C-alpha cells in the first residue's frame, strides 16, 4: 500500500494546490512534496535488501485482469523513488525565489510530474509503465511551453514530438510482446516479469531491441538522438530543466535496465556493443562541445548529455559493475545536475546574463555559494569521496570489462569533465569582477536549504556508497540471471 500512497499522494497534493491556489500555492506544494519525501524515505528505511518487489499492490484492470494496475518497489526502483522523493521538494524550494504567473498551476504541474515519475519507477505492468512514461510528458510540456524562454514554443514542440515518436516504437513492441505471452491458453499477460520469460527468436529480439532502444535513447538522450535536449534545457524555466535533467532522463536508463536488458538478452548480446559505441561517442562529443560553451545553462546541458552517455554505456555492458554503477550514478547525477542548474539560475538571475564572458570574480562576494558550487562541481567531476566517483568508477569498470578500448575512450570523460567544469568555475567565480557581478549577493537562507541536502548527499553517497549498493545488489544479481 505504501507504493499506492506514493503514487496517489502527489496527485491529491496537486489538486489541493489548484483548489487553494493563490499565494499559498508554493507553500502547500512544498509541504506536499515533503510528505512524499517522508513516504519515500520510509520506503528506503524499511526496504529489505532482497530481490522481491516490496510495498506492492496489484489490481485487475483491463481485459479481465490480463493487464493489471500493479506496482511495487524493488532494488532497481528504490533509488529512483528516493531520488524523485528527494529532488521534488528541493526543486519546489528552489523556485521560491521567482514569482511565476499562475503559481497554482505551475506548482501543481510539478507535483503531477512527480506522480507520473513515481509511476514509471514503480510500475510492474508493461502497459502501466508505458502509460506513466507518456503521462510524464504532459506536465513537463506545459511547464516548458508556458513558463519558458523566448523560443519555448518551437523548442518544446520539437521535444514533445521527438519523444512521443520514440515511445510509439516502444508501444508497438509492448503490444507485440503482450500477444506472445501464453499463446497456448490465450490468456495474455503484460506483467513485466512475465515478459522476461518469453522465448523470442533472434530476429524478434533484434526488432524489439531497436524499438526499445530508440524510445529510451531519445529520452536519455544517447547520441545522435540528443538534439532536442540542449535547446529544451536552455529554454525551459529552471525548475522544469531540473525535473528533466535530474529525474526524467533517468526514465530512459531505467527503462533499459527494467525492460530492454532482461526481455531481449540476445538482442543485447548482438547489438549491445553498437549501443555502447553510440553512447561513448556521445560522451566524447558532448564533453567536447561543453568545453567551448559560453552559455552557462547550455554548458551544463551538454555536460549532462555527456554523463548520461556513460550511464548508457555502463548499462549496456551487462556487467554487475555497470548496472550497479548506473543505479548509483542516476542518484548521484540527479543530485549534482539539479545543484548545478540551481547555481546557474542564481548566477543568471542576479547578473541578468547567462554568458560566461560577462561574469567573473563572484567568489569575492560569496563564500557560501563558492563552497556549495565547489562541492557540486567535485561531485560532477567524480572526485573520490564524492558521489560522482562511485558511480563513474563502477560504470567505467563495467565498460572496461566489456571492452578495454571502449572503456579507455569512455574514460576521457574524467579529463574533459575537469576541463569544462573548471573552466566554468573559473570564468564565473574567479578573476576580476565585471559590471554585472559587482556586489553579487551571497545565497540566502532558503537558497542554502536547497544546497545543504544536496551537498550532504554528495558526501553521503561518496563516503558510504554501500548503504545504497547493498540495497540494489540482490535485485541486480537477479536481473543478471535473466541476461546471462
Amino acid at each position: 500500500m505504501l507504493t499506492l500512497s506514493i503514487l496517489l499522494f502527489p496527485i491529491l497534493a496537486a489538486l489541493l494546490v489548484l483548489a487553494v491556489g493563490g499565494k499559498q500555492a508554493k507553500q502547500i506544494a512544498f509541504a506536499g512534496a515533503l510528505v512524499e519525501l517522508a513516504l519515500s524515505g520510509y520506503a528506503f528505511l524499511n526496504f529489505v535488501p532482497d530481490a522481491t518487489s516490496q510495498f506492492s499492490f496489484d489490481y485487475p484492470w483491463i481485459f479481465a485482469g490480463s493487464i493489471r494496475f500493479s506496482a511495487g518497489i524493488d532494488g532497481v526502483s528504490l533509488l529512483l523513488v528516493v531520488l524523485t522523493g528527494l529532488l521534488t521538494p528541493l526543486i519546489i524550494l528552489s523556485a521560491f525565489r521567482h514569482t511565476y504567473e499562475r503559481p497554482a498551476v505551475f506548482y501543481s504541474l510539478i507535483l503531477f510530474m512527480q506522480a507520473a515519475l513515481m509511476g514509471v519507477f514503480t510500475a510492474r505492468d508493461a502497459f502501466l509503465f508505458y502509460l506513466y512514461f507518456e503521462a510524464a510528458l504532459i506536465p513537463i510540456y506545459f511547464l516548458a511551453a508556458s513558463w519558458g524562454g523566448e523560443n519555448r514554443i518551437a523548442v518544446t514542440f520539437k521535444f514533445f514530438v521527438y519523444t512521443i515518436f520514440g515511445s510509439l516504437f516502444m508501444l508497438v513492441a509492448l503490444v507485440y510482446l503482450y500477444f506472445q505471452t501464453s499463446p497456448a491458453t490465450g490468456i495474455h499477460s503484460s506483467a513485466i516479469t512475465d515478459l522476461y520469460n518469453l522465448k523470442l527468436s533472434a530476429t524478434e529480439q533484434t526488432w524489439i531491441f531497436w524499438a526499445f532502444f530508440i524510445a529510451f535513447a531519445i529520452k536519455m538522450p544517447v547520441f545522435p538522438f540528443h538534439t532536442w535536449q540542449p535547446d529544451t534545457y536552455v529554454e525551459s524555466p529552471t525548475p522544469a530543466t531540473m525535473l528533466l535533467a535530474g529525474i526524467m532522463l533517468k526514465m530512459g536508463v531505467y527503462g533499459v535496465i527494467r525492460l530492454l536488458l532482461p526481455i531481449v538478452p540476445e538482442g543485447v548480446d548482438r547489438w549491445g556493443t553498437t549501443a555502447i559505441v553510440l553512447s561513448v561517442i556521445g560522451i566524447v562529443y558532448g564533453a567536447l562541445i561543453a568545453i567551448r560553451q559560453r552559455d552557462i545553462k547550455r554548458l551544463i546541458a551538454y555536460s549532462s548529455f555527456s554523463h548520461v552517455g556513460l550511464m548508457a554505456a555502463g548499462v549496456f555492458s551487462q556487467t554487475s559493475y555497470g548496472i550497479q554503477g548506473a543505479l548509483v550514478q542516476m542518484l548521484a547525477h540527479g543530485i549534482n545536475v539539479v545543484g548545478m542548474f540551481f547555481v546557474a539560475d542564481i548566477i543568471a538571475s542576479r547578473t541578468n546574463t547567462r554568458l560566461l564572458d560577462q561574469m567573473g570574480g563572484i567568489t569575492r562576494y560569496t563564500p557560501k555559494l563558492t563552497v556549495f558550487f565547489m562541492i557540486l562541481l567535485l561531485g560532477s567531476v567524480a572526485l573520490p569521496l564524492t558521489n560522482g566517483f562511485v558511480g563513474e568508477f563502477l560504470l567505467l569498470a563495467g565498460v572496461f570489462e566489456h571492452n578495454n578500448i571502449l572503456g579507455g575512450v569512455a574514460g576521457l570523460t574524467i579529463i574533459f569533465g575537469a576541463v569544462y567544469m573548471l573552466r566554468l568555475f573559473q570564468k564565473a567565480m574567479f578573476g576580476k569582477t565585471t559590471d554585472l557581478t559587482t556586489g553579487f549577493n551571497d545565497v540566502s537562507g532558503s537558497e542554502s536549504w536547497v544546497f545543504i541536502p544536496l551537498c550532504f548527499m554528495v558526501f553521503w553517497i561518496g563516503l558510504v556508497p554501500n548503504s545504497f549498493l547493498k540495497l540494489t545488489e540482490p535485485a541486480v544479481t537477479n536481473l543478471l540471471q535473466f541476461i546471462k
Partner: protein
Amino acid sequence: MQTDLLILLIPLLPLIGFIINGIGFRKVPTGLVGIIAAAGPLAAFACVLLVFDGFTTISELGKTAPVRTVLFDWITVGHFNIPFSFQIDQLSLIMLLIVTGVGSLIHIYSIGYMKHDDGYGKFMAFLNLFLFFMLLLVMGSNYVVMFIGWEGVGLCSYLLIGFWNKNTSYNNAARKAFVMNRIGDLGFLLGIFMIMGAFGSVEYVDVFEQAAGFPIGDPTVVAITMLLFVGAMGKSAQIPLYTWLPDAMAGPTPVSALIHAATMVTAGIYMVVRSNVLYTLSPITLEIMGGIAIATALLAASIGLVQNDIKKVLAYSTVSQLGYMFLGLSVMGYTSGMFHVMTHAFFKALLFLGAGSVIHAMADEQDIRKMGGLRKYLPITYWTFLIATIAISGIPPFAGFFSKDEILMHVYEHNKLLWVLGVIGSAMTSFYMFRLLFLTFFGRFRGTEHTREHLHESPASMTIPLLVLAVLSVIGGFFNVPEALGGSASLAEFLDPIFELSRKVSPHSFDETLLTHSEEFMLMGISSGVAILALVVAYVMYIQRVNLPEADTVERPVVEKVLYNKYYIDELYENIIVKPTRGLSDAFYSFGEFIIDGVVNGTGWAVKQTSGQLRRLQTGSIGFYVFAMVASIAVILWLRFFIKL
C-alpha cells in the same frame, strides 16, 4: 587496538584542522588559526613516531608483515570489495615520516609567511586538507584508497596554485595542473581496472601475492605497469606530462615546498616502489621508464641552466630530480629511489622555503637579476640555502651525495650510457644551483633602493624550519651509507621486506653488487668531482667575471634562446593539442549539431507534409492533437481502473 586508533588518528588530525579552519574561516582568531593548523600535523607526526616505534619493536621479533587496519567496506559489488583500509609497513612508514615531518615544518613556516594574507585561514585549511589526502595516499592498503589520496592531493594542488584567484594566469596554471594530472589519473584508473580483472582484488597483499606467480614479461602485467606509470608521469611531472609543474609555481611558496617538491610529486615514485613486484615482472616498462626518466632529468636540468626566476629554477630542478628517482627505479634500484625521495624532501623543501624567505624580504620580487648580495641581509637564509645547494649538487658528505650516488651506481651496473648521461645531468644540477646561489646571495645588490631598505631576515617561525631542514640536509645521507664507506645501509635493510616478492620473481636482479670497492670509490669520485667542477665554472662565470643574465629583450644565441623558452614545449602543446581540441569543439557545435538536427528536422518536415494533407479536415496544431490523444488515452485508462475497482 591502540595501534589501530593511532593509525586512524594520523590522517584524522589534519582533517580536523581543515574542518575547524575551513568552516571557521574569518571567524577563528588569527592567532589561533596557525596553532590549530600546525597542531594537526605535529600531533600526526607524534602518532607516526609512536606507530614507527611499535612497528620496529615487533619487527625485531621477526614479524615484518604489514599491519592492516580495515575501517569499513567502502564499495562492494558482488564478490568484489574495496575496503577503506590502511596498511602500515616499512614503505608507508618512511613516507609517513617524510610527509608529517616535513609537512609540520612547512605548516609552521607558513604561519610566518602567510599571516598577513587575506585568505590566511583558508590557506592553512587547504594545507591541512592536502596533508589528509597525502596521508591517505601513502597509508591506503589498496590501489583505490591510494587513488582517493592521489586525486585529493591533485585537488588541493589546484586550490593552492590558484590561491590568489584574482589573477587569471594563476588560475590557468591551476587548471593546467589539474587537467594534466587528470590525464595521468585516467591511466592510473585504467590500470586499476586491469588489476581488478586480472587479480579480482585491489588490495596490495592479494595482488602482489598472486602476481608473484606470473611469468616475467606477462602481457597483462606489462599493460598494468604501463598504465600505472602513465599515472606516475602525471603526478611526478615526467615527459610528456611535466609542463604543469613549472607553472604551478604560481602558488604561494610554502605550497611549492610542500606539494610541488617534498611530497605530492614523489607520489609516482611511491606508487612504483609500492608495486615493485609488478615492475620487476615487466622489464619492458622499466626500460621505457629509464628512457623517459633520463630524458626528463636532462631536459629539465638544461632548461634550469638559464632561468632567471628563483622559483622556476627550483621547479625545473625538481622535475629533473624526479627524473633521477625514476632512473633509479628503472634499474630496480628501488631503495635508491626512495632514498632520493627522502633526501630530496629535505633539501628541496629547504631550497623553496629559503627562496620564500628571499621573496618575502624582496617584497615579492622573484627575478634573480634584481637580487644579489643578500647574504649580508639574510644570514640564516643564506647559510641554510648554501647547505641545501651543496646537498642537491651531490658534494660529499651532504645528503644528496649519498642518494644520487646510489642511484648512479645502480645505473652504472645496468647501463653505462645511462650512467654517462646521468653524470652530465649531475654536472648541470650543480651548475644551475650554484649559479642561483651566487646570483642571489653574492655580488652587489641590484634591486631598487626602496627594496634594499625593506630587506630583513625572516621571523623565527620561518627560520626555525630552515634550520631544522638544514640539519637534515647535512645528515640525511647517513641513513643509508654504502658498505664501501663503512656504513651499514640501514635504510636498505629496513625496506628489505618490501622487496621480498620482487626478489622471489627475479632473484638475479637483487644479487649483491658485483662492483668492487675501488670501482665504487671511482664512481663516487667522478660524480662528486664533476659536481665540484661545475661549481668552479659557476664561480668563475658569476663571481669572478660577474656575468649577469641578460634582460628579456636582448637577442640570445640560438641554443640559449631555445633553452630560455623551454624548448617551446608549451607552444607545441598549444598547437597540437589545445587548439585542435578547441577547433573540434567548435566544429561539433556548429557543424555536427547542425547536420544531426537537419536530419531530425527533415524527418519532422516529411511527417508534417503528410499530415498537412490530413490537416485540411480539421483545424488546430499537431502538438495539440498528439497531446489530446495521449491525454484521452490516459483518462480512459484511469477511469477504467477506478470503475472496475
